[in-house]
């Protein structure tokens, strides 16, 4: 009986992932090549052949084998953002006072210090482990379970380390660029990292708080809203028809620097 339940649970958790893989295969099969009306493309006024010397460096270039999937996900995320997440954020700002939102934000920032602590340990960084453990200890106690943030006025720096960075520190390359559903720009390595961090932090949360189903839903909802509210980015908000590759470059370069840091 319990085996059946857990199997159903496993199924419920893996089905969405399976769906995404299928979607990925489907869209991956969808061509990125443009449609030519007629036999061959007309020569434009300015073609690459005419304008670009093949021997000089270009910009925003990288291997992107999953481009069709990525662009599909980018559009999917835009829609989820526009029709679900942003309305939730706006509603959240309407119905909650600012001290409540600050408390929620502090709480999650503090809780996810756990992620930074084990990743700093795995990266062998004593400095970051010490700082973050200090923050966590101060904010969890004096800061009343993380609702307040006395560690910042005390001058303890805030680091952010995740398992993608840890893998990077260990020498694992980023792999191809990957736009994750809901979460946005990532890479194969960072996507795996996100999965690992999600699993570990969820286990830790459940062990400490032992939340029931309702609590879990409230937690997830608040976490999603709070996270979105603090990301200053709008899909298709750059005014550039080339936004996809600009964001790809910025993400990739930022992650490289994050790992170097």
């Amino acid at each position, binding site marked *: 009986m319990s085996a059946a339940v857990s199997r159903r649970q496993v199924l419920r958790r893996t089905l969405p992932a399976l769906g995404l893989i299928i979607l990925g295969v489907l869209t991956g099969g969808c061509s990125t090549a443009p449609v030519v009306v007629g036999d061959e493309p*007309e020569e434009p*006024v300015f073609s690459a052949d005419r304008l*670009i010397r093949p021997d000089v*460096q*270009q910009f925003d270039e990288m291997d992107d084998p999953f481009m069709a999937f990525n662009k599909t996900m980018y559009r999917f995320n835009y829609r989820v953002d526009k029709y679900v997440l942003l309305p939730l954020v706006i509603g959240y700002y309407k119905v909650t006072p600012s001290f409540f939102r600050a408390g929620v934000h502090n709480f999650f920032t503090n809780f996810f210090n756990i992620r930074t602590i084990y990743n700093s340990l795995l990266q062998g960084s004593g400095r970051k482990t010490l700082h973050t453990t200090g923050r966590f200890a101060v904010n969890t106690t004096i800061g009343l379970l993380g609702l307040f943030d006395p560690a910042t006025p005390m001058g303890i720096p805030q680091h952010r380390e995740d398992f993608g960075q840890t893998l990077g520190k260990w020498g694992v390359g980023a792999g191809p660029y990957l736009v994750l559903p809901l979460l946005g720009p990532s890479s194969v390595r960072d996507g795996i990292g996100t999965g690992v961090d999600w699993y570990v932090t969820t286990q830790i949360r459940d062990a400490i708080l032992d939340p029931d189903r309702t609590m879990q839903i409230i937690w997830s909802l608040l976490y999603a809203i709070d996270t979105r509210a603090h990301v200053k980015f709008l899909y*298709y908000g750059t*005014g550039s028809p*080339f*936004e996809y590759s600009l964001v790809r470059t910025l993400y990739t370069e*930022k992650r490289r620097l994050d790992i170097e840091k």
Partner: protein
Amino acid sequence: MALLLGTPASAYDYPFDDPFVATVVGTPADYQADLDVRVPLKRRSIEIFPDREVPDVFFYDKKLRYSYALQKGPAPLVFLIAGTGGSHDGTSNRNIGKALYKAGFHFVALSSPTHSNFIVSASSSHVPGHAFDDAADLYRVMETIWRKLEHKAEVTEFFLTGYSLGAFNTAFVMNIDQERQAFRFKRALMINSPMRLYSSISLLDRMLENIPGGEDNFGAFYQQLIDRFAEVYTRSDELNLSEDFLYKVYEIYQPPNERLAALIGTAFRLAAANMAFTSDVMTDFGYIKPSNVRLRKNTDLATYNHVAMRLGFTDFFHAYFYPYYKARNPALTRTSLIEEMSLATIEDFLRNADNIYVTHNADDLILEPGQIDFFRQVFGERATIYPNGGHLGNMTQRDYVAHMIEIFRP
């Protein structure tokens, strides 16, 4: 009133005498107006041409995006037009919006007709840069938005302003309003306007000659800027990709002054590339994209991006804009089109319109030597010319903002 405005703010204090530094750095905190105000900004989108089909690749641009903020009670409303490639909620529009809201105005902020979203959703021709056509498009947009807002806002009077190309647009919109009278703008303010578009775009294109190693090195130079921006972004954890994002690079990587021109040129080049490619896709002219190629949602645009970034505003003018209008009016000549896209075309109107004001800087980079005198002569006491500030560098300077608000005081 004239007395009050005519005095070119004796208190004006702006630290940079190099117009390139001013343009990139803007106004340091110590010199800034207090723009600390919570603006209840609403972001909306609106259909301008309900029957318009939009290509798959621009599916997200079917509606025109704009923003507005309303005071609680009755107040005057200011329409605000962004500059070249500028978005309705870009940095400059937001700063002007803050100043206006703080002073008790409603405002509606619009993207530039050269912004991709505007080209796709709100331009009647999809070919931006035409003084009269852009103004007609803007006027239609304002009327459409106002039909939606008039039930929500208590408006006492209308005002109009814009910066850079948006200031140029402002002049031509005022010209239309004189005839159409839909808004009867009480006053308008043109902030750092070009005088003749072709002069300004030539100056901006030429700035890229300052790229180390020449224009063939553009790819490497631009990549370096993006990487540096990623560094800024890594430090601040804030990805605010507004149209002037390249200037943020300056904050941590202070380039030698001779690179500043290249930096400014690149920021404008970005606007030129976005504009030209978007327009080309909409008209199938065959400027960058082959005319018989249809882009799909997932099509890789990298090569078009590389080509577009190598083409300036003047290329756009000669190989696209002029041929496009020539095909519609065979009598048109290159020279006449260049001369027509100028404030001089409506000089008499501007000279007699005693409700149109100008703020400008004597060292503005988008003006050819002597062009500042056009503003002095045509607008007389209605023009306030500051000695320094480059292109929009002093726009948040204390006295500058105070002066701007003073012009709109009912």
